[in-house]
């Protein structure tokens, strides 16, 4: 029983991994230097490092988004704006002084994350308790979030000048990999452990597949959905802290702009159904890396700016088609096998 389960999850991740490898393979032909990694000032340096570095925020957001999608069969489109709120709180708390923060670094970060969680709880309240459609409920913070962020910053870009603020978004001295990679990996690991070691993962799936049935067998559906949104808020907060640290400032207009769409795409590319229920965290993370690999590859291939979105769209269409049930059916019918019955996802 366990073996077959493992096989199924292995199969679920098969296509996302193939997509990622395909994107990377293109580089093998076009830019041979792509996989070269050198050591520079004690840190690793190369396109591959760029990919995992830049994909970190997206992977973090994708983790939160996966849980929200799984539990409520809807998407949280406020993640980018919530990131901006967090960034604003952190930069406002720490202040622009070059020598000292206004308050201890950790407290500033925690305040920011608290803001993120509160935003997530607000979304959760609207979706779980008030039963508003997720996209409509999160639309509120999607529009208001940047306004709140602007208010906190008083309409200006707050720069945090102290050098150590940059560490979260760059490198810890003498550590060869960028910090965001560690943060993303740690968050993924903790999330995975919590979901596997407790029954939470199964509860989320059960609620996502059928909210009422979940309640009838004794799961507090409302609480589960509420929690996934709050957790997504936390993830947005962590991503916002990293994004703000990268530029050592809070740019309320631009932090996490349009990233919610990439986060949703990462979940979809990871082979997860946007209809809720079964989910794969690892799939979403691979999806996030694929998106960044695509962007970095296009830069490395010197695609001009005006053509960039077209190439991205083409690749995304190909990957999504590859993963569609219809396409798989068609392939297997070509091979002369009996069409695989589309698995009932929900």
């Amino acid at each position, binding site marked *: 029983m366990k073996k077959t389960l493992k096989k199924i999850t292995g199969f679920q991740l098969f296509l996302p991994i193939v997509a990622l490898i395909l994107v990377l393979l293109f580089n093998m032909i076009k*830019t041979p*230097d792509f996989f070269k990694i050198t050591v*520079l*000032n004690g*840190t690793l*340096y*190369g*396109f591959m490092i*760029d990919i995992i570095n*830049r994909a970190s925020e997206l992977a973090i957001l994708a983790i939160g988004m996966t849980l929200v999608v799984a539990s409520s069969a809807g998407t949280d489109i406020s993640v980018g704006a919530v990131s901006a709120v967090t960034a604003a709180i952190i930069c406002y708390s720490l202040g622009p002084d070059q020598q000292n923060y206004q308050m201890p670094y950790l407290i500033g970060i925690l305040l920011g994350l608290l803001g993120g969680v509160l935003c997530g709880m607000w979304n959760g309240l609207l979706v779980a308790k008030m039963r508003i459609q997720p996209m409509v409920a999160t639309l509120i913070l999607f529009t208001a979030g940047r306004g709140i962020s602007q208010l906190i910053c008083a*309409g*200006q*870009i707050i*720069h945090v000048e102290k050098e150590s603020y940059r560490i979260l978004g*760059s*490198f810890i001295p003498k550590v060869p990999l960028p910090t965001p990679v560690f943060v993303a990996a740690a968050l993924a690991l903790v999330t995975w452990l919590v979901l596997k070691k407790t029954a939470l993962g199964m509860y989320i799936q059960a609620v996502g597949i059928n909210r009422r049935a979940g309640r009838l067998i004794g799961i507090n559906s409302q609480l589960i959905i509420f929690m996934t949104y709050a957790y997504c808020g936390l993830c947005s907060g962590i991503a916002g802290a990293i*994004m703000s640290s*990268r*530029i050592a*400032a809070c*740019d309320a*207009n*631009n*932090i996490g*702009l349009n990233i919610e769409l990439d986060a949703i795409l990462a979940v979809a590319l990871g082979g997860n159904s946007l209809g809720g229920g079964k989910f794969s965290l690892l799939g979403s993370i691979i999806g996030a890396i694929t998106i960044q690999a695509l*962007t*970095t590859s296009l*830069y*490395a291939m*010197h695609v*001009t*700016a*005006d053509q*960039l979105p077209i190439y991205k769209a083409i690749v995304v269409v190909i990957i999504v088609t590859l993963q569609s049930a219809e396409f798989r059916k068609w392939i297997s019918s070509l091979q002369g096998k009996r069409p695989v019955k589309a698995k009932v996802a929900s």
Partner: protein
Amino acid sequence: MKKVISLLILVLLLSGVFAVAVSAADDLIVVGYSQVGAESDWRTANTESFKSTFTEENGYKLIFDDAMQKPENQIKAIRNFIQQEVDYIVLAPIVETGWETVLGEAKAAGIPVILSDRMIKVTDDSLYVAWVGGNFIKEGHNAIEWLDNYLKENGRDNEDINIVLLQGTIGSSAQIGRTQGVEELLADRPKYHLLAKQTGEFTQAKGQEVMESFLKSYPDIDVVIAENDDMGYGAMEAIRAAGKVPGKDIIMISYDAGRRAFEAILKGDLNATIECNPLHGPRVAEIIQKLEKGEPVEKIQYVDEGVFDIKNAAEVLPTRAY
């Protein structure tokens, strides 16, 4: 009691009439100003320039309308201005098209319209009396001309120079103009090689990401031109991460000339910044004064825009408001 109240009301009414009469008696020039929004430091400085120019002490009454990035708000605002019978309308248009009807109404009401910042596309250019703004193509030329001088001074004018260009959001007038200006001058300078251009969407984060990629593709970059200051800061970070020194190993040029750019020049991180002057207010006031006297005004008026480097940054910095 009733009498007292009615008397009070009468007094109030009379004082109201009186107040109106007084305000009409002042010879203030009423200017309705429809601004895009408050999306950037540049825009804030732009708005502030109008608010500080059109004050009552200077003989103006400014009716300010923030359109919050919505063209329909601007059309509404202009109709309001027409109803209020303002003397002049200043419009900083959000979009280029769709202005014929509402500006036609203003023209019919005999209210002159002055455009600020962005241009509009209308078939009948008598719909506005003048346009005040920056010359983005010239800003593009400025960067290359500054570079010519700089290289000559440092004895590098016979070297081959590799340039990368960080573009703004594709399609914005600043991006189109600056890119065009840079490329025009590069065309007749065979020693300069434009290795690559890519959009950094006017943000620091994207500028950094794109520059990281440039540095890996081209080990031998001599000059970075960033179409705004923010992308320039991002590029600096990427250059430092690659073990080079911005401003020294790689010549840095950016646009906008905000306060932080001056600080970067003084620190040596940035070599030059080309101004995109947001202070349109005084120029618009000049036009209005001319119109009041019945003098002709030029249709297209570029604001003065400077180029700043280490030679003049220190003296300008204290006067920078934005």
